[in-house]
């Protein structure tokens, strides 16, 4: 029995991202993403996903079609869990978690994963294969593939963890909010560490769904550009091992988080970015930092007219017009429920390398914008990054990542 029934109210404390990993259209592992960021090489390509006939660009991860999940978890085999496994296998993440498991105990490490569509592609394909009576194929397993907890269940089984576990599914903010929940769990004493992450894979639902909303670009996405015309959908997996920082200053830490709702519209952001600003403000307050102490903002920056307008108002309203900002979706595409973790890991890479990435594909910043959008990569030491993730339902989350003050 865990003695946690008497817990004093927690105080905010930095959490170290002691290990992290990411897989996306730029390649497998952090080095592939960092290399592409340095070289200005986008992972986007013309849509060649299965039998889709859409005039758009996507961030597809190569090889998912050919590599099944490990045999012991074959029930979980689907594109989304294959992508999760690539992430867990990269960057030495699996062995880092094994060491943490030995240190804390399997039941003291939580697993909290964000996804928007999990393995829905399996259900889409199963519907195509209904028999004459309309029944789905016998081999189709809803629970271990499509169901939104599947990816979290797969992750905890793959890593042999036994702590509290759940999925957060709040569309495109999902895998930013996992950091907030993990922080509360650790502060409440329900666990000592957490594996957080996000996994979303290409599927017909999002490709055709965003197309019918008419917010998918026919060219590679151009965040904050005057000529921007919508999103490029991508797929990605990312994970981080969160532990109490306990004075560590050699790895990036979660310094703050903020969450809010727009209370405005299901699929259009608040026009003045009011909800976004609330989330950013809360993240700054929790980190104890002033706006001027933020060195770089990784924007949600989807390249839709509405998102980028609202985010510009929120960012410039709170931080002014000097702080360098960019969206990295020109590299990875919009990885939806995996965007939060993807961009949190990018923030960690930028902190480690002293790299401020440009808004790739952006040539002329929208003349109506006040925020300072980077058009070229810049090298300079940075200590604190604000990362934004906003989703359908007006769901907002902002993270402050960086090195704690010494």
């Amino acid at each position, binding site marked *: 029995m865990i003695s946690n029934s008497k817990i004093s109210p927690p105080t905010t404390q930095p959490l170290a991202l002691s290990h992290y990993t990411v897989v996306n259209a730029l390649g497998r592992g952090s080095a592939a993403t960092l290399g592409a960021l340095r070289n200005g090489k986008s992972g986007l390509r013309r849509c060649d996903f299965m039998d889709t006939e859409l005039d758009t660009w996507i961030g597809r991860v190569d090889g998912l079609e050919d590599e099944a999940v490990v045999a012991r978890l074959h029930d979980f085999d689907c594109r989304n869990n294959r992508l999760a496994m690539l992430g867990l296998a990269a960057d030495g993440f699996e062995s880092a978690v094994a060491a943490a498991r030995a240190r804390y105990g399997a039941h003291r490490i939580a697993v909290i994963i964000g996804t928007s569509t999990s393995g829905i592609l399996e259900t889409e394909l199963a519907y195509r294969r209904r028999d004459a009576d309309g*029944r789905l194929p016998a081999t189709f397993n809803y629970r271990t593939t499509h169901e939104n907890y599947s990816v979290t269940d797969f992750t905890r089984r793959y890593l042999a963890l036994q702590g*509290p576990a759940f*999925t957060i599914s*709040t*569309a495109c903010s999902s895998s930013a909010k996992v950091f907030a*929940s993990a*922080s509360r769990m650790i502060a409440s004493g329900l666990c000592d560490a957490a594996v957080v992450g996000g996994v979303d894979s290409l599927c017909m639902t999002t490709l055709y769904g965003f197309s019918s909303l008419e917010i998918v670009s026919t060219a590679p996405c151009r965040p904050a550009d005057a000529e921007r015309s919508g999103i490029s959908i991508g797929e990605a997996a990312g994970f981080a091992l969160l532990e109490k920082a306990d004075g560590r200053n050699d790895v990036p830490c979660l310094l703050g988080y903020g969450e809010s709702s727009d209370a405005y519209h299901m699929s259009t952001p608040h026009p003045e970015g009011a909800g976004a600003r609330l989330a950013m403000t809360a993240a700054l307050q929790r980190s104890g930092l002033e706006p001027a102490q933020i060195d770089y903002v990784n924007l949600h920056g989807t390249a839709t007219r509405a998102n980028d307008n609202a985010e510009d108002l929120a960012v410039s309203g709170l931080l002014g017009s000097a702080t360098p900002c960019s969206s990295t979706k020109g590299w990875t595409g919009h990885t939806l429920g995996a965007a939060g973790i993807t961009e949190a890991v990018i923030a960690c890479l930028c902190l480690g390398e002293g790299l401020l990435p440009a808004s790739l594909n952006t040539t002329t910043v929208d003349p109506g914008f006040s925020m300072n959008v980077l058009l070229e990569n810049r090298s300079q030491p940075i200590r604190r990054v604000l990362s934004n993730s906003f989703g359908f339902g007006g769901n907002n989350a902002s993270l402050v990542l960086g090195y704690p003050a010494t």
Partner: protein
Amino acid sequence: MIIYLKGIAATGPGFENWDALRNHFAVGADLDPEFVPRPQGTILPSVERRRASPTIKLAVDVAQEAVLQSGLKAEQLAVVFASSNGDTNTLHHICEALATPERFVSPTRFHNSVHNAPAGYWSIASGSMQSSSTVCAWNDTFAAALVEAATQCIAEQVPVLLAVFDTPFPEPLYEKTPGHQPFGIAMVLDANSQHSLAGLELSIETDDQPGATRMNDAQLEALRCDSSAARSLPLLAACAAGEAQQEVVLDYTEELRLKVVVSRLGD
């Protein structure tokens, strides 16, 4: 970890609302075998009400009832919504549309398909700009959502509206995922004990025994096992009972159990 219950609502097969279920548990009043929830979504503005599915209406109905009972203002409340399968009818219609040559996904269906659609509709209807999360953990969704809500109450010092709801899939998915009769449960929870109905002390256990608390009544036990939302039934029974203190155990992942000690504070 102790949190306090300030409002409670439930609807499901056999009972329209919390009063009916409480009377059953407290004084043995009969449940209505004919009753099935017919969600209205009355809190939703008319445009949203037209767009909302039965799953969304079930969620906001039960949420609204709990908030009314709590006496707190909806816009003050952070939100944790949870459901194991989300909007089951919408997911079916989208997969069906994608299996046709046209592959046309209706924009409204698409935004209704996100797992947090009910929470999004709730924030629009209630005006709450507070944090809003939507979680799931298969059959253990209720326990996971209760823990998420409790840690928010304590860490953020904000009252939290918890709503857990499930609806059945239509065929052909129903064959693969049976059960999930419409069931909704909502609680308003707070770190502050003032004006509360009960105290809930949560702790996580690694022991196998005792296992999850079962319902004594066979029909209610079958209902408990029917969906993740209905797995709240033992806790609802404890909240309805007049006992000074009662312990409930909920499954919480394969290896863990969530123990909830319910202490009665007032009426």
